[in-house]
């Protein structure tokens, strides 16, 4: 049971319900650009003697050459291998010897690196990140090792994990022309085919200051931090290459796409994926609020009807996969044993239909507002989280202050907006419906 819940947590974690933001007291920050185009955001908070040093590169799997999928994520692994001044394997060592932790992750839209350090080690974090940006060393031995490690990562997180292929299958069903059709882990054949020259080209194109946001939060002094940032980053040359961004638009579908994927997982899963507008657009917030009505809390409509009353599923909910280009929202259910997936699908549709015909009540609206207020207060409780959110808002919207103001966009959504969003976006003709079923041997 427990692991099933963790599957669900994994699934919902990748979909950002209410991109976490704002607290009751607003988050103060300072931001500026270096001459080379690096955007810098600083947040000062002395409650704990730690500092989060983060760099967000505006490159993800959607920037990849379709014959080199998985490159952005693979590259993230390579950038721990060392630099002109950091020996292979020493990157982690420097951070851990300083009492810090480090890691990175790659999404469809961006790659994010971070070090969480004791606050007297701020300069170390800046040195490491500037080395990574200025002259990372990409050697064949690192390429060969990380090629195997990434394959293990894919086996562990996708192939050998219950329902591990679910997201890849769904994205593939939702997109025909846009690069969101593949997921960040990409194709192992493509990675095998990549040459040293491919990596250098990727590095010189995307890992440039004018494509990055340096976001630092914690126990720091703004002036000191500014001069340290200049010291380590101002000499990094601006990129000279054009940064490719996808311009294709996924055509609107007019007919539902249905498919069945067979695998070794015993319980069926039903996914309905609906195309939605890009994150940050007014309708994106309306869809997010609609999903909140359907899925947040035990009293949410899908849980109440499908899980509690009809007892058809272990779990049922709907979440937006908020992306920079138009994304998708998933309504999904993990079906109880012995129940027909179509019965669950009908029950889900029934709840969605109600959203299209009826306005939510005043009390339900107030519940949504209370939930949102509570969620906004609870988010941004760590320095690492604040640094990342500031970088997100700047990278995607050019407005880091959304960390304080995005809540207003949610609170402005009316019951009419929610009903309209249900009718516009929860459209059976544009969705992809997938059943994941057990294949009897």
């Amino acid at each position, binding site marked *: 049971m427990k692991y099933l819940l963790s599957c669900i947590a994994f699934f919902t974690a990748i979909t950002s319900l209410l991109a976490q933001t704002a607290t009751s007291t607003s988050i103060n920050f300072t931001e500026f650009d270096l001459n080379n185009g690096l955007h810098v955001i600083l947040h000062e908070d002395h409650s704990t003697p730690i500092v989060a040093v983060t760099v967000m590169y505006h490159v993800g799997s959607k920037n990849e050459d379709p014959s080199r999928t998985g490159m952005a994520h693979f590259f993230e692994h390579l950038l721990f291998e060392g630099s002109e001044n950091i020996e292979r394997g020493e990157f982690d*060592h420097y951070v851990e010897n*300083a009492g810090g932790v480090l890691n990175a992750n790659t999404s469809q839209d961006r790659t994010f690196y971070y070090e969480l350090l*004791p606050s007297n080690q701020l300069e170390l974090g800046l040195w490491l990140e500037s080395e990574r940006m200025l002259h990372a060393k990409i050697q064949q031995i690192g390429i060969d090792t990380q090629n195997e490690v990434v394959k293990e*990562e894919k086996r*562990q997180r996708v*192939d050998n994990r219950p329902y591990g292929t679910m997201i890849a299958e769904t994205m593939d069903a939702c997109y025909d022309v846009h690069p969101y059709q593949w997921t960040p882990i990409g194709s192992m054949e493509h990675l095998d085919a990549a040459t040293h020259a491919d990596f250098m080209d990727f590095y010189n194109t995307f890992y440039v200051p004018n494509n990055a946001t340096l976001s630092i939060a914690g126990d720091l002094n703004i002036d000191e931090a500014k001069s340290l940032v200049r010291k380590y980053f101002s000499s990094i040359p601006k990129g000279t290459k054009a940064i490719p961004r996808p311009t294709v638009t996924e055509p609107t579908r007019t007919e539902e796409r249905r498919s069945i994927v067979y695998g070794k997982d015993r319980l069926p899963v039903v996914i309905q994926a609906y195309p939605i507008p890009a994150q940050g657009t007014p309708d994106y917030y309306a869809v997010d609020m609609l999903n909140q009505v359907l899925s947040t809390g035990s009293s949410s409509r899908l849980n109440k009807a499908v899980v*509690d009353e009809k007892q058809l599923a272990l779990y049922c909910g709907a979440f937006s996969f908020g992306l920079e280009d138009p994304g998708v929202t998933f309504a999904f259910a993990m079906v109880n044993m012995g129940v027909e997936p179509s019965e669950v699908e009908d029950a889900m549709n029934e709840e969605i239909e109600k959203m299209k015909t009826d306005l939510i009540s005043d009390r339900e609206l107030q519940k949504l507002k209370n939930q949102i207020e509570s969620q906004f207060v609870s988010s941004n*409780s760590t320095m690492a989280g604040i640094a990342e959110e500031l970088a997100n808002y700047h990278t995607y919207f050019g407005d880091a202050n959304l960390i304080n103001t995005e809540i207003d966009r949610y609170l402005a959504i009316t019951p009419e907006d929610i009903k309209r969003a249900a009718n516009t976006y929860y459209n059976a003709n544009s969705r992809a419906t997938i059943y994941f079923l057990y294949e009897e041997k």
Partner: protein
Amino acid sequence: MKLLNYIFLAVLMAGLLLPSTSLLSQVDRSQAPEAGPAPLIELGESTLLSLPNGLQIIVVENHRLPKVSWTLSLEYSPIFEGNKAGMLDLFGELMRSGTENKPKPELDEEIDFLGAHISVNPKGMRGSSLTKHTNELLSLMSEVLFSPSFPEKELNRLRTQALSGLLASESSPSEISSVLTRVLKYGEAHPYGEVTTSKSLDLLTREDFVTFHKTYFKPNIAYLIVVGDIDPNTAYAKANTFFGAWKRGDIPYKRWDSPARPQTTRTCLVPLEGSVQSVIKLTHVVSMPPNSDDAIAASVMNSILGGGAFSGRLMQNLREDKAFTYGARSIFKTDPLVGSFTAYADVRNEVTDSSIVEFLYEIRRIMDEPVDSASLAVTKNYMTGSFARSLERPTTAARFALNIERYNLPKDYYSTYLEKLSAVTIEDVQRVAKNYIRPDQIFITCVGNESVIESLKKFSTNGVVELYDAYGQPLIERTAASAGVTVESVINDHYNAIGGVNTISKLKGVARTGSIEMGGGMTLNFVHTANYKKGRRGAHTSFSISGQEVVTNVVTDNGGYSVQMGPRSPTEGNELAIAQWEELDPTYLLNTSDLGLKTELLGVEQLNGKSYHVVKLHKEGVINLTCYFDKMSKMLSSTKAITESENEGTMVVTTKYNNYLDLGDGILFPMEVITTAGTQRMAIRIGSVTINPDIDLTLFNLN
């Protein structure tokens, strides 16, 4: 002039350039920058209070965010669920599924309306909300605490979900691995080793949940941990308002044994079709409570080996050097009852055995070689940093206060933690590695493709890979016995192997003495006297402690009785018939006709690297006994008796006969007899055996 101009210009430019080049050269990129002065690490403060009903309150005041969380934490000894395994997994959700006044939908809606959360688990409950909703939250929490309704309908829903979950876990490598290692390490008869099955879920009734709540949800074993935007006085007043009426109660206490490590290294595999990776765990139990003096040194040792740090040896070796895995780590877990050591990784099928070689290499290296001072320093720095980072969350201060209380740690345990960490030496690290880790008495477990079996054999002491199913049950391979082998030949072989059918059948009597070890560390004296002479047959068994008889059992041809710290109760019916058969005849296995037993040779079973002839002795409604005879030594190795009763359901009693020894009379007796029934385990260790002794026949008097 022109020239001068040029020179001037050159100087000017140099002058202009110089400062900027010198500015750039200030950045010495070749060296990592020096750290600034170390910041002061301050522990958050907590306040400890208590209500008259015994409820202890820990308050951590932190006004950063306008919210408060309330956590009730119950402290009781581990619960064994037996044939109701899985009840505790469902307990929290069921208790949160409605109160006497509010059915589930109403309760859910009221909690969600506040934007609050309330969750329940068998060890307590947790609620959190914005500060302004505190009273409403506490009112709902106390309603759930005091008057949960445990609705039948919701139990059925949760049961269906749990049954679905069980089915799903049959194809989850990580879930299977966690069940397998639990069963192997602790055994199914231990609270830490129980396995939920569809059968145990079917047996759950509403009453089980009601009783559990009534028994264990008491203030005198509870801590209320309050964290957030609230001061201790207000927290106390609110606790008193909402939990002050909570009534004390007596809580059952049970002392559990600490399971031992395996005697040898055992390699255990759950074959899973289609696996592209092997989920490997090397694991054994460790006896180390959280308040042990070695606990910090052990965590340093584990951190160097494979703790959270990326520079851990397992990670560096198996990932960064060999590229066998995405991650390899180890955990050293302290526990008041029994802890564990586990090293683990998911690796591709082809490198399964190579990975185990590296695991064992790194485990032995940390035992055999002193760690270098640089590694020790990195690890201490890393752990110091982790400790400091953990203080970012106000719940940490609350956890520290709770641990000091429940694990009986010194009051300054956390305020002096960094000093203690810094004092750990190279010798300490090697000492704890040597004292607590045993790679020669470890379970090497793997969930993965069956193709890896051959390559795993070399790791187990007896050269055998034991196979298990998804529920941690041995996969038994049964084949037909060779031609000519019969029930009679197998039983005759047994008696011949231990001294000869003739010799044994002519025994006039046997007296044995020894000790009995019961659960909970209790040891008693054991005396067993049997008279086999026709007409006067009788057997007398007594358990005593300091000369005081605790249990007496008597069986004769004319009847029997037992005394267990109280009045005699006669032994009658089937129970008597079985006791007469087993105890009054030294070659009882050959004499199956008196009881009218049907016998059957089931074949040969492979178990843990040995082969056994399996014989079933059976009579409907009386006895169902399966006997395992070691194919090599011929001797009876164990029996499994299955009884059915309405109250207990199916009960399986297994008896193992170990260490057959000839004490000088030409007859071999098992020196150790271990009987297990449900959670009860009893080990008889024989000290002396006298054959044909003088017997005081009054022992067998029935009056």
